[in-house]
């Protein structure tokens, strides 16, 4: 097993690419930068494929494969519980899925970027950051302990900041980058405390050791909440920040200021799903804290519905997709919260395909229109950019959950788990189904506004053109996976087994509490014979609302294009509220940002910094200067004043001596 013994290679490739491009790429032609950036990520992808081949041959006892490289932090060696962190990587089924998703989508987006960014300055910088992001993301998913995971976690945040603010000369991207960094920091605060609490409880940060010890702990009921619930809630706080859930989702829509490939890679397909991955990874702890699970499920379901409503009224094509991402991440958390982690990860993967595709296609639309992002100035693009149209339509069908496409399988599994799984909850299921209907509506609204109807752009100014090959080919590949990427689950519907779920099963069952195990497996077996499940899925509410959403969008934007305007007129207050995203940004600004700025400016800046710190520094300088000025006058050059000092000194010494003599006596 050659590669399994050298896991570090997968990390070293993108890191080397980032270093080479970052240090030397400035003087190189673009083709050389491309070769390094795309080459390193493609090699990493090939390495992951090889890893999968070797992984498939492993016996169950050999999993997870752990590579221990060096002791990174060793502290408190003489105490009873030394704090010891190794730089160690591990591979199990969950990691393999994440590695494949991240490296595959990452590779396609690197290729796409060579076309999309072709006319931009700072070309080498962009690819250096993008490779660095790949390095940190792969570190995150391969980490074998919480601290190494945290390195990846913060590293992707850093790259997100750098890439959102890629056009840093403009104010809005620079501000958006800062906002993303600071808002996620709020969540990371909880995450850090969670890690410390884990060490305090288990005396280790190593996943294997934590999980082994957790198996001896009881499931904490709502009445007997304890340390596990606290840990899980704190860790989930980090996930809320990173994965843009309520109430910390506000940074993600603003992050659309970055280049579109960045939105696709970081803010749709990979980084924002890190929170879901983390919750799934920590499943032995979450499964023993039902209260935390409920919190995860509620936050997920409410976010899924809430941000879908915002998506209804946005006119910026990327903003619609951003709110859609927040909403879909909500579904993943809902899946984790109702105990079907594999469904969450499944949706994570299919979402990476179709949402990555949606963003890339949106980028292609923007490219075709010369930078226009406002959907009210698009329309009728179907003929001009056919490849973009067809691929985006496929992605839309996938996200809307139309049967046969990837999103249908994953979303159906989540909603089915919410309805009948071990942690079923009708309220959350209703929110999820309603959100699915809204998703279908706003996605088809996007398609109809962009590709159908009258041309609302200036045809004399804008020369609509299809994107180059290096952009359209990734679109087509992703479209392929948006259709077939979900078919692992298809056999289940006709009475077979769910390949994806089975592949991941060891990760989620090894350390699961025994009670949950029994209930988790029960409904799958109880499912009826061949065909009934398929029939049930095809005629279930998720599909019905998806089709309903499609027809409503068709009615609104194709059949009677004046309906939206009239509806907005008659429901003006509601429309204004949704259009302005429930004024959440404004509320946050009034509640947190402005008071904080006021305190920082008046107390910390003018008071503490200028008054106290500068006062002490300048004060000591002034004391030295003024006392020096006074002492300088002693050096008058006047011999008689020197003589006077000598006399005074002599008298002083004499008096002192006399005094000492008297005291001595």
């Amino acid at each position: 097993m050659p590669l399994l013994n050298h896991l570090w290679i997968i990390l070293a490739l993108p890191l080397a690419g980032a270093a080479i491009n970052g240090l030397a790429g400035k003087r190189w032609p673009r083709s050389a930068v491309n070769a390094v950036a795309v080459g390193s990520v493609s090699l990493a992808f090939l390495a992951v494929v090889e890893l999968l081949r070797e992984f498939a041959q492993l016996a169950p006892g050999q999993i997870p494969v752990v590579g221990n490289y060096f002791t990174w932090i060793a502290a408190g060696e003489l105490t009873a519980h030394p704090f010891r962190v190794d730089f160690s990587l591990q591979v199990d089924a969950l990691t393999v899925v994440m590695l494949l998703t991240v490296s595959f989508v990452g590779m396609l987006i690197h290729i796409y970027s060579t076309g999309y960014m072709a006319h931009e300055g700072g070309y080498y910088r962009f690819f250096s950051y993008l490779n660095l992001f790949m390095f940190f993301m792969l570190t995150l998913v391969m980490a074998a302990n919480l601290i190494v995971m945290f390195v990846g976690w913060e590293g992707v945040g850093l790259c997100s900041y750098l890439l959102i603010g890629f056009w840093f000369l403009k104010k809005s991207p620079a501000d958006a980058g800062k906002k993303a960094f600071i808002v996620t920091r709020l969540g990371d605060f909880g995450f850090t405390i969670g890690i410390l609490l884990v060490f305090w409880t288990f005396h280790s940060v190593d996943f294997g050791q934590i999980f082994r010890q957790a198996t001896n702990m009881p499931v904490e009921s709502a009445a007997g909440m304890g340390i596990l619930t606290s840990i899980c809630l704190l860790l989930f706080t980090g996930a809320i920040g990173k994965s843009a859930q309520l109430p910390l989702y506000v940074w993600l829509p603003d992050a659309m200021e970055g280049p579109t490939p960045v939105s696709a890679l970081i803010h749709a397909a990979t980084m924002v799903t890190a929170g879901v991955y983390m919750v799934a990874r920590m499943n032995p702890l979450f499964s023993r804290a039902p209260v935390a699970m409920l919190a995860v499920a509620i936050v997920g379901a409410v976010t899924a519905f809430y941000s879908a409503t915002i998506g209804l009224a946005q006119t910026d094509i990327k903003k619609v997709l951003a709110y859609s991402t927040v909403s879909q991440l909500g579904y993943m958390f809902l899946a984790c919260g109702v105990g079907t982690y594999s469904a969450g990860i499944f949706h994570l993967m299919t979402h990476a395909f179709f949402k990555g595709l949606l963003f890339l296609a949106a980028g292609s639309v923007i490219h075709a229109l010369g930078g226009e992002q406002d959907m009210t100035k698009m329309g009728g693009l179907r003929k001009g950019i056919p490849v973009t149209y067809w691929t985006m339509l496929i992605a839309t069908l996938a996200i809307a959950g139309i049967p046969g496409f990837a999103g249908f399988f994953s979303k159906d599994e989540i909603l089915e788990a919410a309805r009948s799984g071990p942690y079923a909850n009708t309220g959350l299921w209703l929110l999820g189904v309603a959100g699915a209907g809204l998703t279908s509506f706003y996605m088809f609204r996007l398609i109809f506004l962009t590709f159908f109807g009258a041309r609302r752009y200036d045809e004399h100014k804008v020369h609509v053109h299809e994107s180059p090959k290096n952009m359209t080919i990734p679109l087509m590949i992703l479209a392929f996976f948006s259709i077939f990427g979900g078919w692992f689950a298809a056999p289940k519907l006709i009475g077979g087994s769910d390949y994806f779920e089975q592949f991941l099963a060891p990760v989620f069952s090894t350390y699961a509490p025994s009670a949950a195990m029994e209930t988790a497996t029960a409904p799958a077996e109880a499912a009826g014979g061949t065909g009934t499940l398929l029939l049930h899925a095809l005629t279930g509410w998720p599909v019905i609302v998806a089709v309903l959403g499609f027809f409503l969008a068709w009615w609104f934007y194709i059949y009677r294009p004046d309906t939206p305007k009239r509806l907005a007129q008659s429901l003006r207050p509601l429309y204004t509220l949704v259009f302005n995203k429930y004024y959440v940004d404004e509320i946050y600004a009034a509640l947190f940002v402005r008071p904080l700025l006021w305190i920082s400016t008046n107390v910390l800046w003018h008071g503490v910094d200028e008054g106290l710190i500068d006062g002490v520094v300048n004060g000591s300088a002034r004391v030295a200067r003024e006392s020096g000025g006074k002492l300088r006058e002693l050096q008058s050059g006047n011999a008689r004043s020197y003589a006077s000092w000598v006399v005074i000194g002599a008298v002083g010494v004499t008096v002192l001596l006399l005094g000492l003599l008297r005291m001595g006596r």
Partner: protein
Amino acid sequence: MTAVPISYYLVLSAVLFGLGVVAFVFKRNIITLLMGIELMLNAVNLAFVAFARARGQLDGLVFVFFVIVVAAAEAAVGLGIVIALARNRESLNVERVNLLKL
């Protein structure tokens, strides 16, 4: 015949020394300053002699000779400086001599 007690000499010496100090510190004429210095030196000489006599030892007398020699040299150099000063500044006022150079 009773000897004059040593304290008389010492008091006289102290008074003379004090006058010398006062002259040096408060007068402006540089020749007066030199005279003040001479007065202080000789006040010290008087004290030395008095002690030597009182203790019946010769050390103090030897010191006195050294002091007289140094005083003579000092007077020679000092008066030379006075002449140079008088030529350059056209004044004997010591307050105009504060640059530590001519």
